[in-house]
């Protein structure tokens, strides 16, 4: 409490100091023309369609100042409008010179616009950085503040804009109104009637405004400390991270990704600072020694879709997923429409076509490759208490396998190899041909299970090296269809024709990558060694014989290469081009016998057995490929992934990398660190704006997803920067103290009633002259009904649940998974735990504007439709809630009259209208009771108007008349506007 008061005192002190410092009003002299305010909009509106990022008519663009200003450009001569081509063209009456050209190129500039351009050029044509990219500066407070109203810095800015519009703030909201708003905003749930009453009582007792503020502050601290806080804010982040419990596309099968949701809840509850929150989600795997939670956090970018449809090209959908990661990252953190830059330079902002691919390169070398298994995954035991140890074991296993393979890989590079030239080369299918020690396919069909048989005179050897080569030498054609050998066999045939199989003891590869291990080519199944699902370039494997082979006179060595590998759609991953070499050094046998290798092998098998014995789920995660197997990134010409251009190095867009203080960014970790560094002003602005929008219904920048030239400008630029600064510096990226400041501000505490004048002058409340009144989100509507009816399950975290939904909703082609309706507690869990199937989302949520989460959804647009009414009137969950609420009210009060009052008290119904509403509902109760009695007499019973869907509702048909009528009253309450808004 002491802290609270100190904080408030500090805020006020800051304000006073700031007000003093800025007391002198700016001079009255005409203000110089501001580029961003005046000039940029003219250029965007009138010029950029032809002289922009995409189309650069006359080879220049108003997106890039260096193309129009000297020395590089010649369109504008600073200080000399009369010598500026721009002015000459917009003033010209000659249709051949006039700009924009007459006809279909849009309207001519107005006289005012031309004069503004001239004045700006006269003043030196200073080009301003777009407002969103300007460095974040320590805020200066507005000079005029009504200190009796303003409680903190937020209010000072809001007051300043209200005053300039000649408006006054609204009066304070009733405590109950504020509490409802704050409870939903912070925890996503309504306050209980006890909480409402006790706040009311405490406020009545408060004798000074300081007392009152302390009571409010204590309430906010209680809400911020609630475990429900994390659930509410995780919900928001789930739209951004496109969280879903299924893989998407055609079959849309199940995916175990709920531990990521738990991670989000926990991170918000712990108030993890946004910099860490960012780094862990984008690059947790690249931290020096990532722990379980760091790895789980990377599932953020595994919420992309995996296409398991038969016959799809895994590379196409891997690329789609990586493109989605780039666009999502830039949308979430930077509110930058980087998606535009996929095909061409940005039309309005200074992002070049190659900038997209520099970003893509940052994300391009993760291990995942659109495989049906969602590889790579982290095995998490069913008992979360074992997660830490199981993950430790898996990380150790990876390390061991890497080191073990390196022993062989290093040896293979140290020893000398001789060509192994087959004299006979045949294939079970299609045609192949040998040339020297290489074999290539030459035509025909190579189905799954193709076997190459190669023969050569028997020769002394200890190991054989098989190199798998792409069929094309042109690196621009890569990657190509995967190529793996699933079983290597060496057979010696003596002069008499007797065959003897050689025992192959081990296999070592150039490096480890993909879902299979090199040893997989030593047994006959469909796993193997090579490029899988795609071949990125040459790969080699060394198979080591258990015993050295001696040369045998007139003997033959037969090499059998089985190819049973396939990708989705029964497409064979056969070999197209290989090279064979052999080696006869005893070092291979020494390696096999070395204690180091033997110990490692033992440890690996032990770890594998232990993991196999632990039942659990497979969480898709991001894991970086071995640098030796990194994927080169090429530009896609016009965005077409099949048309590859020049190779692009990972990095930042030029407009950022050229800024002062920017550190090197060559990998995902550096990129994540840069995002939350002081060199990047956008992340703090974007997150602060999103937080604001979550509370006020719309952002200071309305386009939460677009802070570029095509987005809307901020309504209160200084307030946005103030919030961003407070978040970034004062609160060191912590969300809770920022939220605390906002919900305790006088701005937020205003009453939401709109006066007729305000409604006319500021219909959308952009000036914030009243409190926000917004519809609850889809999840909140369900959660609120469950809460006031007393049904809400209290557990936090865990796997997704399947509450009742109408039959027949969930029918995906080629997928037998079912919606198994939850029983008991799981029926009534918070909305964020509802199973989210992409191709068939929970209908009640979709109707209330929840996105499908196919892609990142930076903003929900609320609508108000009759279909929504049908959900809350008739969906089983609301029927159950209505009944439970009626029961609860009757149980608590014993009398119908009081039960209705009890139910209304759950909503914090405003006192002004409460008696009227109460009598309205009482009369509803009376009428329904007599109607039900009539129906009963007429023998229509409770089964009248039964719907097929409602029969599964679990409602009890044998309720008392009293309870049935009260349930109708409860339903009216659950459908009321009071219930559906905050």
């Amino acid at each position, binding site marked *: 409490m002491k802290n609270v008061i100190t904080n408030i005192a500090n805020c006020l002190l800051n304000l006073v100091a700031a007000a003093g410092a800025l007391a002198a009003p700016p001079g009255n002299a005409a203000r110089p023309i501001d580029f961003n305010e005046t000039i940029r909009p003219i250029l965007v509106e009138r010029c950029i369609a032809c002289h922009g990022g995409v189309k650069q008519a006359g080879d220049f663009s108003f997106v890039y100042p260096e193309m129009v200003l000297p020395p590089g450009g010649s369109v504008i001569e600073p200080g000399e409008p009369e010598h500026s081509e721009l002015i000459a063209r917009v003033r010209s009456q000659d249709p051949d010179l006039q700009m924009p050209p007459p006809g279909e190129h849009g309207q001519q500039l107005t006289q005012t616009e031309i004069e503004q351009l001239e004045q700006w050029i006269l003043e030196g044509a200073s080009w301003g950085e777009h407002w969103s990219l300007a460095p974040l500066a320590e805020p200066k407070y507005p000079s005029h503040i009504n200190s009796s109203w303003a409680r903190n810095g937020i209010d000072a800015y809001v007051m300043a804009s209200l005053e300039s519009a000649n408006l006054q703030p609204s009066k304070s909201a009733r405590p109950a109104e504020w509490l409802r708003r704050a409870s939903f905003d912070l925890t996503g749930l309504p306050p209980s009637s006890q909480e409402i009453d006790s706040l009311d009582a405490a406020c009545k007792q408060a004798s000074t405004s300081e007392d009152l503020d302390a009571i409010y502050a204590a309430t906010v601290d209680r809400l911020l400390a609630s475990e429900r806080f994390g659930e509410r804010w995780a919900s928001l982040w789930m739209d951004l991270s496109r969280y879903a419990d299924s893989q998407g596309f055609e079959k849309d099968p199940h995916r175990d990704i709920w531990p990521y949701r738990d991670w989000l809840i926990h991170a918000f509850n712990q108030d993890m600072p946004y910099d860490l929150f960012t780094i862990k989600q984008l690059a947790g795997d690249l931290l020096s020694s990532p722990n379980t939670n760091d790895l789980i956090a990377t599932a953020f970018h595994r919420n992309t879709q995996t296409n398991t*449809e038969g016959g799809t090209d895994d590379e196409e959908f891997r690329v789609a997923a990586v493109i989605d990661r780039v666009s999502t990252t830039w949308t979430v953190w930077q509110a930058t429409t980087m998606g535009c830059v996929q095909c061409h330079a940005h039309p309005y902002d200074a992002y070049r076509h190659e900038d997209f691919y520099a970003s893509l390169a940052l994300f391009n070398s993760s291990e995942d490759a659109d495989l049906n298994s969602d590889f790579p995954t982290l095995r998490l035991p069913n008992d979360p208490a074992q997660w830490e140890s199981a993950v430790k074991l898996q990380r150790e296993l990876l390390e061991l396998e890497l080191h073990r393979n390196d022993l062989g890989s290093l040896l293979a590079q140290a020893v000398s190899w001789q060509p192994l030239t087959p004299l006979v080369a045949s294939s079970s*299918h299609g045609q192949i041909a040998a040339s020297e020690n290489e074999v290539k396919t030459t035509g025909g069909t190579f*189905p*799954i299970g193709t076997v190459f048989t190669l023969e050569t005179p028997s020769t002394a050897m200890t190991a054989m090296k098989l190199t798998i080569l792409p069929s094309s030498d042109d690196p621009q054609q890569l990657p190509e269809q995967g190529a793996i050998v699933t079983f290597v066999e060496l057979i010696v045939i003596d002069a008499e024709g007797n065959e003897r199989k050689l025992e192959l003891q081990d296999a070592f590869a150039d490096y480890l990558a993909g879902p299979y291990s090199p040893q997989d080519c030593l047994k006959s199944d469909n796993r193997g060694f090579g490029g899988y699902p795609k071949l990125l370039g040459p790969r080699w494997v060394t198979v080591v014989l258990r015993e050295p082979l001696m040369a045998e006179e007139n003997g033959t060595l037969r090499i059998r290469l089985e190819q049973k590998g396939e990708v989705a759609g029964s497409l064979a991953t056969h070999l197209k081009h290989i090279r064979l070499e052999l080696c006869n050094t005893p070092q291979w046998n020494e390696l096999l016998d070395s204690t180091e290798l033997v110990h490692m092998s033992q440890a690996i098998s032990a770890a594998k057995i232990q993991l196999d014995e632990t039942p659990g789920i497979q969480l898709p995660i991001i894991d970086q490929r071995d640098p030796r197997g990194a994927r080169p990134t090429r530009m896609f010409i016009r965005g077409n992934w099949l048309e590859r251009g020049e190779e692009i190095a990972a990095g930042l867009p030029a407009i950022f990398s050229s800024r002062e203080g920017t550190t090197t960014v060559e990998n995902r970790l550096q990129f994540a660190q840069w995002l939350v560094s002081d060199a990047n002003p956008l992340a703090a602005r974007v997150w602060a704006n999103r937080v604001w929008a979550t509370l006020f219904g719309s952002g200071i920048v309305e386009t939460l997803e677009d802070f570029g030239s095509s987005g809307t400008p901020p309504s209160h630029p200084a307030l946005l920067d103030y919030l961003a600064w407070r978040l970034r510096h004062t609160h060191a990226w912590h969300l809770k103290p920022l939220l605390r400041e906002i919900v305790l501000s006088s701005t937020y505490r205003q009453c939401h009633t709109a006066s007729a004048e305000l409604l006319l002058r500021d219909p959308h409340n952009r000036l914030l002259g009243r409190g926000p009144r917004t519809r609850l989100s889809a999840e909140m509507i369900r959660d609120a009904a469950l809460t006031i009816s007393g049904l809400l399950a209290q557990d936090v975290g865990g796997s997704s649940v399947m509450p009742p939904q109408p039959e027949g909703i969930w029918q995906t082609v080629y997928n037998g998974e079912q919606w198994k309706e939850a029983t008991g507690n799981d029926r009534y869990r918070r909305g964020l735990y509802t199973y989210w199937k992409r191709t068939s989302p929970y209908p009640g949520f979709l109707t209330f504007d929840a996105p499908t989460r196919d892609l990142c959804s930076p903003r929900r647009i609320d609508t108000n439709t009759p279909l929504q009414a049908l959900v809350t009137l008739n969906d089983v969950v609301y029927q159950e809630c209505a009944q439970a609420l009626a029961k609860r009210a009757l149980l608590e009060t014993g009398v119908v009259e009081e039960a209705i009052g009890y139910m209304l008290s759950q909503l914090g119904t405003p006192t002004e209208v409460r008696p009227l509403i109460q009598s309205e509902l009482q009369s509803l109760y009376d009428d329904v009771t007599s109607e039900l009695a009539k129906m009963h007499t007429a023998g229509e019973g409770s089964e009248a108007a039964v*719907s097929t869907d409602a029969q599964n509702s679990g409602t009890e048909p044998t309720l008392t008349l009293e309870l049935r009528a009260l349930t109708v009253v409860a339903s009216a309450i659950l459908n009321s506007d009071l219930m559906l808004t905050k």
Partner: protein
Amino acid sequence: MNAGFELTVKQLQAQTRRHFMSNCGMGLASMWLASQADGAPAAEKKQTSKHMPHFAPRAKRVIYLHMAGSPSQLELFDYKPELARLDGQDCPQAFLEGKRFAFIQGVPKMLGPQYEFEQVGEAGHWVSDRLPHFKSVADRTCMVKSMFTSQFNHAPAQLLLHTGNQNLGAASFGAWVTYGLGSENENLPGYIVLVSGGKVPSAGKSVWGSGYLPSVYQGVQCRSSGDPVLFLSNPAGISDAIRRRELDALDRMNQLTYQQTLDPEVMTRVAQYEMAFRMQATATEAFDLKQEPEHIHRLYGTEPGKESFANNCLLARRLAERDVRFIQLFHWGWDSHGAAASEALNEGFKDRCREVDQPMTALLTDLEQRGLLEDTLVVWGGEFGRTPMRENRGGKEMKFVGRDHHPSAFTVWLAGGGIKSGFTLGATDELGYEAVEHRVSPHDLHATLLHLLGLDHTRLTFFSQGLNQRLSNVTKPSRIVSELFA
């Protein structure tokens, strides 16, 4: 909120301030009112839909029959005698180089037409013996034999065909049309989707999603068993009279809230609850097939209570009669690879043809006899075509006969409002491998159909993600295929 959306909200708001007290049916910020239901007073009608037709429309509504999985054009409409001659021979290398198929690998064999063809009617459309009923109405249709697409997998191809973009996130054709034209029935959704057997197509509900458009424009999936519209029925034990009484109390409760808050959104909510109540009656009636006489059931081959394509065709006619703007039917199971009997050309394909032949024929007949065909656009087709080669999944000859996905050529037929009946547009090469004359892309089809609805595809836009999004292709010009116009 972007500029376009805000404009609509502002218009509504202006109306609302003037009207909500005198006419509780009007609300504010309700995109529903802007788009779905033209519930405004007569004087305001012109304003409620943002676009309205850009020019005089030839058609008022669309019935889109999508055959998910993609039926073989080579077994139905695109007759290729030369292909019959090459049956069983190796596919020429020229067809394979640089091509990527979903399942075919190596060198497959050519596969001749599996069924008998004949030319029918005055127009002489080629129709195979799989569609005996359809032959009687073939003259009403226009065959587009030169469709092609860029996608060879179901989900992306369906997305491209229905949203103009192979990736998820764009708005569907139906959403664009309701966004552009609104609906003329305030008690039914403006965009209704019916799926045979409840099976959603490969690309899921995104093919009728609203994408970047506000969610009110998404298609409403209705069902022919259970509640036709989700949550349409009152809960057990709640009669219409009780529900009416509940809504009266709710309305008054909300009026009180309005008086206290002056939040216009409250009155929109009141209006929406009233509309929901009316919809309960209207939709139930609209979906009640038992109201149809016996001869109509015989015409369509319908059996009330089933989720069949036949029932959905009859429902489509009932919805068209009620001025629903966009009615979309999905039938499924056309993916004739030959990998299983259920989909093979020589097995399951025959059943699929039987399932659609009579109902789609009945739909055209019935629309025509009611005078609805002249202002209803009917579209039939899959998301791509099928290869002239026999599929050899895994590089092997398969037990059943089938064809792989083929983006280079497929056939779509159109009928009704503004369409030149008995006309054939475009042609494929002699083996049916590639559309060679008058090639029509999905974007061309969109631009053309929008034109018939009175909408200019370049002006029907919505600002999102830094771009004036539209159904037709922003980067490449889409062609209005005016040759198809009557």
